[in-house]
């Protein structure tokens, strides 16, 4: 009989303890797998989100992406950027705090976005209806600016494509009050960069200007550019940055790297701590069970040795036992880990202000490989002491003790 066969029979003979060990490894392995997914999940998710917009360069004011300091002389800058040979297209975005005004109802605060790109710079998805260049009204009423609104807002205010609503912007740092203007809903979409329950209204730059009473300063919160494939994003970033000193220009790769350095580092650190802890826990579990099991079977092992079974085969049997417990537990850990990751992700995504498209637990091949490596290491390390016990067993003395006891 092979060492594997012997290990399998041992596991079947001591079924209860084998099942419990497999359950323990599966549960702890699932947590370990989740922590490995968490370590890079946010970065992968954020990179997916950023790369899905169709633009590979982000341009912000001198304070960077987070401070939202506006870019001055935006129209001239747009023209300059569009003329660069490294750039294929450029678009700008403006944002303002606004309120939806309904008769006899309290105003609902919204974020108003003005976009020079009718497709919204890739900031919305799963569109119902059309983009900002879609049909505005049955008769194409030019007085109504088009709007793509967030799904939670559409659900709460009972708006659908074709509905009209009034919006009034707030003029920051001023006591002025703007009159409300009507907007017509052309599309309802998910905004993955905003929190799940955000009220958002995206309109054209013309709609945004009208909301500001037809008078608007020449600024932009962000600009997005797409590099030409022949030039690549790095060359385009360098070319745009040369245009003006007060710009901060980032490729998507730089944005993701910056996010990796500054955002949610707590979760990456806790994932390292917990994956180490769970690895140690799995080792303890398997090592303890195997050691206790070998101690219980010392007579059996001594008898096998007395029958002429080589030390190496005894060691291989114990190694196979560890591999069976850890391997089967580790396999069960994968679906269990996916299930647990869904639960944990749902909990964490309730964090206020978190972009709706961001996920904490993202499956990647590297996590799977690391998970397998941790389990293999656990099985090998956990079996060292029991193997040492078994192969150094004094055969005659052990058999005698067994008979006497």
């Amino acid at each position, binding site marked *: 009989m092979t060492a594997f066969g012997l290990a399998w029979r041992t596991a079947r003979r*001591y079924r*209860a*303890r084998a099942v*419990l*060990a497999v*359950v*323990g490894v599966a*549960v*702890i392995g*699932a*947590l370990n797998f989740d922590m490995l997914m968490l370590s890079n999940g946010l970065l992968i998710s954020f990179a997916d989100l950023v790369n899905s917009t169709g633009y590979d360069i982000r341009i912000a004011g*001198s*304070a*960077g992406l987070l*401070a939202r*300091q506006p870019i001055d002389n935006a129209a001239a800058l747009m023209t300059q950027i569009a003329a660069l040979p490294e750039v294929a297209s450029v678009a700008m975005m403006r944002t303002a*705090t606004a*309120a939806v005004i309904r008769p006899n109802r*309290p*105003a609902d*605060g919204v974020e108003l976005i003005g976009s020079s790109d009718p497709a919204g710079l890739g900031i919305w998805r799963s569109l119902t209806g059309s983009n900002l260049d879609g049909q505005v009204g049955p008769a194409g009423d030019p007085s109504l600016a088009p709007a793509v609104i967030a799904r939670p807002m559409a659900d709460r205010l009972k708006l659908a494509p074709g509905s009209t609503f009034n919006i009034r912007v*707030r003029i920051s*740092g*001023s*006591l002025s009050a703007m009159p409300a203007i009507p907007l017509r809903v052309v599309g309802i979409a998910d905004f993955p960069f905003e929190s799940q329950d955000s009220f958002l209204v995206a309109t054209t730059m013309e709609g945004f200007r009208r909301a500001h009473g037809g008078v608007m300063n020449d600024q932009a919160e962000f600009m997005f550019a797409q590099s030409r494939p022949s030039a690549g994003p790095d060359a385009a970033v360098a070319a745009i940055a040369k245009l003006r000193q*007060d710009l901060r220009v980032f490729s998507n790769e730089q944005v993701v790297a910056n996010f990796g350095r*500054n955002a949610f*580092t*707590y979760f990456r*650190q806790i994932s390292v701590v*917990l994956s180490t802890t*769970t690895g140690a*826990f799995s080792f*303890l*579990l398997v090592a*303890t*069970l195997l050691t*206790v*099991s070998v101690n*219980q079977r010392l007579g059996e092992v001594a008898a096998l040795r007395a029958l002429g079974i080589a030390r190496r085969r005894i060691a291989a049997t114990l190694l196979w036992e560890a591999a069976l417990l850890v391997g089967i537990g580790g396999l069960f850990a994968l679906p269990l880990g996916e299930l*647990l990751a869904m*639960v*944990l992700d749902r*909990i*964490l995504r*309730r*964090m*206020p202000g978190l972009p709706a498209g961001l996920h904490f637990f993202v499956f990647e091949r590297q996590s799977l490989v690391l998970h397998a490596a941790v389990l293999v290491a656990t099985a090998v390390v956990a079996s060292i002491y029991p193997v040492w016990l078994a192969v150094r067993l004094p055969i005659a003395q052990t058999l005698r003790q067994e008979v006497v006891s």
Partner: protein
Amino acid sequence: MRVLTLLAVLAATLGAAAPAGPPDILVSRQLLAKAHLAVGDLVTLAGDSSGARARQFRIAGVYEPTPDPMKFNIERIEARLHLDDLLGLAADPADPASADTVSMINVALPNVSDPSGASSFSRSLSARTPFIYSTPTRDSENSTFLVIDRFHTAIAAVTVIGSTAFLLALMVIRAEERKETVGVLRLIGISRQTIMIEVVVEGLLVAIAGAAFGVLIAAGAQSAVNRFFQARYDTAVVFMRISPAIAMRSIAVAIPVGVVAGAVASWTLLRRGASALVRR
């Protein structure tokens, strides 16, 4: 260019400014170290990155920023100015209203102990002023920590399930080991109930001892974890604190785990007859 977060505080914080010379400011410990400044130095601050309308200030002191878990990974490069000085620095001369603009107003209600009073005041203010967002400080930023608390609780629940399986396996092995002894005990008249209580108590003791040992390890690790993260992020935030309530909770969780493990282990022994237990 480095962005300075300018926090306005009331004049009372700094005391009366010197009648002559530049006004006083306080700088954070981090800013003092990073910019190689010293108390008494003169510094120039401007409200925008171009350095327009810059003014000189004298560093009157240094402060440790209030530990804020929401900002633990942000470098606290901050300075505190008298509100008048900040408004003078940040106001736009082209917009007279900007000198009368503040970012936030803190309101103290007469009855601080009544949490519903803050909520109703907040609702009332929000209803009357559409662009003013008000929230009770008791609830502000709490939801983030509630989410993190739930996340940690979920992880703790999973580890408890894993630990239960571990303890169960150990107890089952122990029960198997003592099969013959238990058979003999049964044969000499010891009741099933007594044996069951013995195994359950053993499981309970192992679980409670394990939990107590875990609390000791956590208490020992507490200072190392805090020191590491406080040095890593240059903050005074306390990341880990083993309170008596947490220690008691972890020991309380161990009790049902021990009872279940002991009960299952005793069942594996007692479901068989005494003769089956002693049979070789």
